[in-house]
């Protein structure tokens, strides 16, 4: 089952929440809407950063295709989330995204804290500097997703969680060494009150 946040808002129909519970079978693509034809009139398809305050891309709402379900609400912008000392980072081996045993205990603690409140949480997936931007964006996505799945498995509601991959774009440590790379291969948590 998929949890969708918010009601049938037509704000950014191209956004489709993909917040699945751990272990859920994969669903077919929910083609709630589509991108505008890029060759069409420029005005309705602009994404000029200053023209809209909506969190998602400013796109002309296209009618939701019948039977495909309503478009989902957009998640809050990453900049709306705040650092917290209550949620500790977890780390990953090179080119891996499975949760290590020692980090599972960290996540258990994180899950326990999350269950004491109802804040939203943003999980950032990060990689070390080695390899390509594109592959690392995929790898960071998998790390954030694996982390999310673990928390959901511990009883944290999936619809409180948003994930974002930064690939190798936002290292915490900038030296070119294994010690530094190990610090960068991480999932990091931020929270937002609601």
């Amino acid at each position, binding site marked *: 089952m998929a949890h969708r946040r918010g009601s049938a808002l037509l704000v950014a129909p191209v*956004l489709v929440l993909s917040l699945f519970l751990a272990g859920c079978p994969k669903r077919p693509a929910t083609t709630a809407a589509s*991108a505008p034809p890029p060759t069409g009139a420029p005005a309705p398809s602009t*994404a000029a950063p200053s023209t809209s305050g909506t*969190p998602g891309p400013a796109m002309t709402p296209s009618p939701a295709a019948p039977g495909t379900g309503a478009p989902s609400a957009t998640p809050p*912008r990453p900049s709306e989330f705040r650092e917290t000392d209550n949620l500790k980072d977890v780390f990953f081996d090179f080119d891996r995204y499975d949760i290590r045993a020692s980090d599972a205990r960290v996540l258990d603690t994180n899950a326990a804290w999350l269950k004491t409140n109802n804040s939203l949480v943003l999980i950032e997936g990060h990689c070390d500097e080695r390899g390509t931007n*594109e592959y690392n964006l995929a790898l960071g996505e998998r790390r954030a997703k694996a982390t999310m799945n673990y928390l959901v498995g511990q009883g944290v509601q999936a619809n409180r969680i948003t994930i974002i991959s*930064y690939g190798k774009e936002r290292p915490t440590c900038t030296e070119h060494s294994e010690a530094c790379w190990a610090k960068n291969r991480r999932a990091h948590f931020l929270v937002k009150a609601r």
Partner: protein
Amino acid sequence: MRPGRPLGFLIGLVLLAALGGALSSPPAARSQAADVLLNVLATGAKKLNIVIPHFTVVGGADPQGLGRSLSQVTARDLTFSSLFSVVSDVPPIAAGDPAALRAAFANFAAAGAHAGLQGVLTLRGDRAEIEMRLHDLTSPEFRLIGAKKIELPAAQTRRLAHKVADEVVLQFTGEAGVADTKVAYVTSGSGSKELGMMDYDGASAARVTSNNSINISPVWSPDTRSLAFTSYMRGYPYLYRMFPFENRPVQVLAGFLGINTSPAFSPDGRAVALTLSRDGNPEVYLLNLASGAFRRLTTYSGIDTEPSWSPTGREIAFVSERAGGAHIFVMDAEGANVRRLTQAGFNTQPRWSPKGDTIGFTSRQGNFDLWGIGPDGSNLRRLTAGPGNNEGASWAPNGRHLVFQSNRLAGGYQLFTMLADGTEQQPLTRAPGESTSASWSPRLP
């Protein structure tokens, strides 16, 4: 070649293995008048000696010295092509004066020059025009073997020199050169990763985004009018399209939850292959640009990403970890008939040559280096062997050159170029911050 050494081009003629391929173009496609000179190239496997005097300026003043500087741009273009040994910095030849032309080229012909290029530049206000005249210096009377007039707005005068070079290459090989092209790339000089664009030779560099977020993975559309790229300008990594030569807003191509990354325009420009994680993990999709519809091509529970089209548009190379580790696979454009290409190492960034015969990729075996492999898995070969890491190759539209990023020099990654066999590696950028993720444009219109 340096001024004052007009005979120097006879020395140091270099064997050019790649030339065989360049000259095997269909004879019908090339200028038949150039056959004599082509024979020089084909039989000798040497560079062709061409003399390029300063362009002759008529019809207006030339306070900027364009006659000289543009001829040098053309000279550098032809040197870069690796097909020519160039003598430049020679005084201009009077326009419309055959006797003066014969006198000017006679000494060079006697010294072994095969071809002479005269450029007549007309400057009039907001327009600039050049007439290029290519002469066979091995023939009596220095026969004219090619002539063409090219006109552009004065603001694009430098492109005239590139277009002349591309026309000279066309005359001798049957395929235009690649000098009138752009390289899009990522520059961190401002403190954030922004998209930049420059002439293929590094000139006229300019930033084309300034949103202070993270902008990566620029790729050119086949018509060279637009760039697709991933940006965090709205917080999350969405896929956008911008029009760097037009006053036209940025468009969203894909804004799904998760990643919207790794764009690749189909050769016909009608579709973009990309990576989305909207179905739970990174998969390769196809975006139909006319309808806006997305179609999923891959199905694997781990990572599938980095699509790259074959020049026919019938197949797509991509990266998958379905075999353990990251490897290069090929599928047809409908997602079927997946086959594995690489067997060892950690392999990403497949980049299909515009000629179709090679898929370049980046392999990690210790450091990162560039390799090539045939689409059928044959002819696996290493293109770089350090120093430093060498990654992110992008093909020139003729498939003879690659631009790539390397951290071989102090200060981080900058862009370099090389021939398709890995030879003639040379720096392209020396810019503040790092310069990465190059995309070599098709030929400009």
